[in-house]
Structures are given as structure tokens and as C-alpha cells.
């Protein structure tokens, strides 16, 4: 088992959070609720 390195962990959390935010933003744009 690879021990979680702090900076790798932060990087991972950051990219997943940005990915998730953009995905939800895309979903909301698709609905037409926001432009």
C-alpha cells in the first residue's frame, strides 16, 4: 500500500473538486436554468 503523500493528496483533491464543479456547471448549463 502506497502511503498518501500530502502534496499528492492535495493535488488529487483539487483536480477532482474542479472536475466535479465543472461537471455540475455543465449539467446546469444544459438545463437552461443559467446561461
Amino acid at each position, binding site marked *: *500500500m*502506497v502511503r*498518501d*503523500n500530502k502534496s*499528492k*493528496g492535495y*493535488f*488529487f*483533491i483539487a*483536480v*477532482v473538486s*474542479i*472536475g*466535479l464543479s*465543472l*461537471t*455540475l*456547471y*455543465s*449539467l*446546469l*448549463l*444544459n*438545463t*437552461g436554468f443559467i446561461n
Partner: protein
Amino acid sequence: MRGKKKLLIGIGLVTIIVAFLFQSIRSGQNAIQVINDIIPGVTSFEKENSQYTVFAGYDEEKKIIGYGVITRAAGYAGPITVITGVKDDKIQKIKVLEQTETPWFFQRVISQGFLDVFKGKKIDEPFQINEDIDEIAGATITSQGITSAVRKGAHWIAENKMGVVIQKEKENLLKIEDFILVAIYCLVLTGITKRINKLRPLTLFLSFIFLGIWQSSPITFANITTILTGNAPAIFEKLNWHLLVSGTMLLTIIIGRNFYCNWMCPFGAIQEGFFRLAKFDYKQPYNLVRKAKLIIVPLVWFALVLGLLLNNPSISSYEPFSALFNLQANKAQWLLMPFVLFVGVFIYRFWCQFFCPVGLTLSLLSKTKGVIRQWYVIIKAKATFLSQ
């Protein structure tokens, strides 16, 4: 813990079913309300059900002044229903009655005045995209769907009400694209059944060229929801679509394996290509990866329920594929596509691992065979026990 998991799955499934029923009840609208709008001067009309629903519009002296015909054709994410108003031998006006296209895609078609292109055209014209009708860039399939529906209606009125003979070009049922797709399927199945993993880069490359660049149509979540909600196009109208979407779903169930993502997906191919070329030594924090992989389930559930409640399952298709392959996307998808490709250099198939709704759906489908087999064994064992 297991009980809680089952409860959550149960709630998730029930909400999807309720949203689906809600969508089925809401769809469908009264076309009669629009008849006056498409043939001006009509004071009364008669409805005729033949191959299509046709309205003959009368003036005050009970003279026929025009016709309205309702036709359907396949759009991007389901059928598009159009009513075409005809007066003399020209199109007066067309109106879209029902559609399930992605709202901003459809809005693009409407705002660019695509429906007005048909106004004043003679009903025996070919109505072919890139011949006498210009498509709306970035909304090709929607433009084609509307044009195809108008063509059906206008030509039907021409032949059946005006006595005009329409010259129809014979189209081959099978096209070169169908054979190429079948050839890729054969390569994939050979690779999987004979365990020749060396074929995988080849099938990914071929799919990237064929599905990504040539066809610009990798499988999207909108395609899958179209099938799940019973809005799939007629099989002979869009054979290539069915070969890809229905074919992949059926094969996934039959062989019990999600082969599309690893062997065919063009977006997966480009991510994998970047990752392997870059060779960055980034060891993923596995504990976090394990947790992050759970995000996809509520995400897809939310997207699906939202799409069904808003009566438009194509909304749930949030992937950035069209930004890369069609060069058309919403603002978020334009940001998402380069972001995913960039992160994909460090994290193997970043999109596929954490966000792809197509991957999740196909993985669930691949388990169908195992579940059926399990049930079969249980039922058989019970039957044997009872007969003893």
C-alpha cells in the same frame, strides 16, 4: 452498513422510476392548438389519420385553403415532431411540437432562424441538408432531424393531396460506415475472447479515427437515456446509430463485460494516449482514489433524475466529448475538456475513473448476465429442493 447501502440503492432506484413516470405522463401535447398558427386564415379544420396525422384547413366558405401534416424524425437525443403548414404548393410555416434535444443546442437552431429557411419553399423540393438547406453549424443532427421531418410531410402532401410525383433517390440500407463499425467490433471481440491484448491499442486508435474524428459521435449518456426512455430512432432510419449504441449495450450484456470503455472509446483513447506518452511518475493516493470513485454514482443519479423531471433526458449528458469531436459545447464543457486532458497526463483516464456516466451505465449493464445467472441457479436449486 450493508443495510444502509441497500436502502440508498433502493431510494435511488425508486426516485429514478418516479422521475421516469413523471416524464412519461408530462410528454405529449395537443397539436390541434397550433393548426391555426401554421395556416393563416383557417376557421375550421378536419383531421385525417393516414400514414401521418394530416389536417385540412378550411376558410369561412368551407373551402380548403391549406394542410398541416405532423411528422417525426430522429434528432440528437430522441424524436423531433414537426407540424408543416402547406398552402397552395408552398410551405407556409413549420413548428416544432415536441423534441428532447439539449436545450442550448435547440435554442441555437431556433435563434439562428432555421425554421424560417423552409418558409416559401415548394413542397416537391429535395429538402436535403447541404443541398437546398444549410445546416446550423454545431447542431448538425438537430438540423437534419427537422429537415427530415419536414421532407416527409411536404412530400406526403405533394404526392397525396397535390398529385405531384416526387423523384426519390434509392438509398442503400447498409453504408460503408456500418461495415467499418462491424469490423472494429470483430477486432475487439477477437481481442477479448482470444486474450490478445496487443489488439487494444489498435482498436482504440481505429475507434478514435472512426468514431471520434470521422463520425464525431462517440457514445454519450444522451444516447443511452434515449434508449432507456424509449425515444430511440427507428432502426432503419438510423442503422449506424443503432449498430453503435444498441449494439454496444447488447454486446455488453451478452459477453458480460464493459468492452467499449477500454477497447473503443475515443475520449478514453486520447486520455490514455496522453498518459502513456507523458510517462509522469505520479502515484495516486489510493485511499482518496477509492473514495473519489464513489462520486460518480450520486452524480449520474442526479443528472438522470434532473433530465427526467425536466422532461428532457438529454440534459443529463454533461460529458465534454462534443467539445473535442464536434468543436461545439457549452461554456463548462469547453473548460472541462482541456482540464480533463491535462489532468489525464498525471492520472490514468481521469474522466473515465471518476466522472463518466457512459462507463458507469455500461459497467452496470455488464453485470446483468451475472445477476441473471445467479437468479437462475437460485431458482433451479429451489425447484430441485421442492421437487424432492
